[in-house]
């Protein structure tokens, strides 16, 4: 293949990973922004979404589209319920102390990972895509499903943005983020907002996972890379800044897709991680972020 089409292919692949990454990172960013806690178990919610998608699709059987869309609805709901329960049972009792919550979410990470290994097993399993149409470009054929993932991610991101900026729920969330105590004084049920945001963040990760699972398979360790990449995106974009998260997800997703097609993936990951650590050291507000209060 010539260089031009090769680059186009890499860009398309990059767009798909950027779409999934931005959804996952947005979940992490929302939780950090509103609750000021770092959820290390975020990648495990992603993994859980994919594993549940496989379980639901394989239980239902029938046409692939039926199983897939059932998974797209049910899996995020189940993951959201688990996140909500763990927030109520553990995180809220820790008073959202940053260090204690990090330790607790590390514990959660191990628990979810081991339960997945015990009940799901170490194999990687695929979910059939709802449709298997291939677009034939002049140089290569490309899966239409992958492009629909990008479209779905754009729709979801837009709706999250609309909810945040145009609705009462979004206003309540932003008020809680801005000043927890004052929000409480204005009769905003801060506790419920926190539980809701934590569940919402996990659900976004689960949706991203269901979307990606027909492309890459479900595996009990699949949460590790999205976690690290989401951290990278959230840091580059500025902790808690929504617009920055989107720009950074696009940047990281695209460059990850393109770089890993031309260079060794280990080296690419190494350099990216080092660069991000340096950003955090020398520009803690992120490259695009507004300065934190």
């Amino acid at each position, binding site marked *: 293949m010539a260089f031009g089409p090769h680059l186009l292919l890499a860009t398309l692949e990059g767009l798909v990973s950027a779409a999934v990454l931005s959804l996952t990172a947005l979940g992490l960013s929302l939780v950090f922004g509103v609750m000021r806690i770092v959820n290390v178990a975020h990648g495990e919610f992603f993994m859980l979404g994919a594993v549940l998608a496989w379980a639901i699709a394989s239980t239902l059987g029938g046409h692939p589209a039926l199983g897939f869309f059932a998974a797209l609805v049910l899996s995020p709901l189940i993951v959201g319920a688990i996140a909500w329960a763990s927030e109520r049972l*553990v995180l809220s009792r820790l008073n959202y102390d940053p*260090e204690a919550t990090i*330790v*607790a979410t590390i514990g959660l990470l*191990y628990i979810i990972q*081991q339960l997945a290994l*015990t009940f799901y097993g170490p194999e990687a399993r695929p979910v059939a895509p709802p449709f298997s149409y291939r677009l034939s470009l002049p140089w290569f054929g490309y899966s239409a499903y992958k492009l629909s993932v990008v479209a779905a991610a754009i729709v979801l991101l837009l709706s999250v943005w609309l909810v945040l900026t145009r609705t009462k729920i979004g206003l309540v969330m932003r008020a809680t983020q801005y000043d927890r105590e004052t929000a409480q004084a204005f009769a905003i049920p801060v506790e419920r907002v926190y539980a809701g945001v934590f569940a919402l963040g996990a659900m976004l990760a689960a949706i991203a996972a269901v979307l990606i699972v027909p492309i890459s398979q479900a595996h009990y360790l699949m949460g590790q890379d999205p976690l690290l990449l989401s951290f990278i995106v959230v840091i580059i974009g500025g902790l808690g800044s929504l617009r920055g998260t989107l720009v950074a997800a696009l940047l990281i997703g695209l460059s990850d897709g393109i770089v890993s097609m031309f260079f060794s993936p280990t080296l690419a990951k*190494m350099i990216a991680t080092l660069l991000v*650590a340096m950003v*955090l050291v020398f520009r803690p507000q992120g490259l695009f972020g507004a300065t934190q209060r």
Partner: protein
Amino acid sequence: MRDIAPARFYALHLAVIAVLFALNFLLPAYHHGLMARILVLAVFAMGYNMLFGYAGLLSLGHSMFFAAGLYGAGLAVVHLGWGAPPAFAAGLACGAVLSLVIGLLSLRTSGVAFMIVTMMFAQVFYLAILYFAPWTGGDQGLVVPRQARVLTIGDQPFDLADPQVRYLTALALFAAVLLACLALVRSRYGRVLVAIRENEERTTMLGYDTFSNKLAAVVVSGTICAAAGAAYALLFGYVGSNFAGVQYSILPLLWVLVGGAATTLGPLLGTLTMYYVIDVASGYTTAYLLVVGVVLILLVLFFPKGILGSVRQRWLGWLP
């Protein structure tokens, strides 16, 4: 704490060391081997405790300091053909230099950012080990040749792979680090660290340079962890990339939390407890990480001070 005679502290710690020495002759073979490993890993936990317990800095990247010692010593033996003592020194030097560089960079941040930055640097270190697989053995690791694992004192060679020698060498390292930590936390410097942990701004206002004090804490902590890593490579003869992974950054945190942060004997107690909990649990189930997860959550919920921290709070206020 000043009014209590320091003799009591040293008596307690020397008694612990004496018990461990006696165990060398009493333990059955299986537990004897396990205990040697626990002593080395307890040194790792003590190094972590210096930074987390006393200076109050939660790092999620300490596996890189352990791995720096592990690979510093292991690679010096495998590729340069060095003997055990210079290889140990090489491991220490690697840990000291690495922790100085990491400290200078990561201490510019604080709080959550510090945790993430240390985790990322450790991830870079881990990926670097995988990337330079021709030298490091990648994810297969390296075996340190047995003929290099010999400590010659005078004219008498000691084979570090021999269980007795291994246990006593591990105990010697443990004892040296334990007493050094005790002296350190009781010194002026140790008190400054605690002051920084409790209120950094106030400590700055009292005229202390908190940055260089914290930097020194990172270097001391990193070097102790590297000592544990170097000893591990020489005593157990295996150098592997899994020791640089995230899990080995979490484990010392877990051990210190179980035993009690900011207690000198907590790291040993925590390592011992968790090692045996996991040992017993893995007899019933392969999912021992589940145990780690549950213990972590139960600890932060109900036992944030750990075993010795609670003992100190309830009964023995003088415990160092």
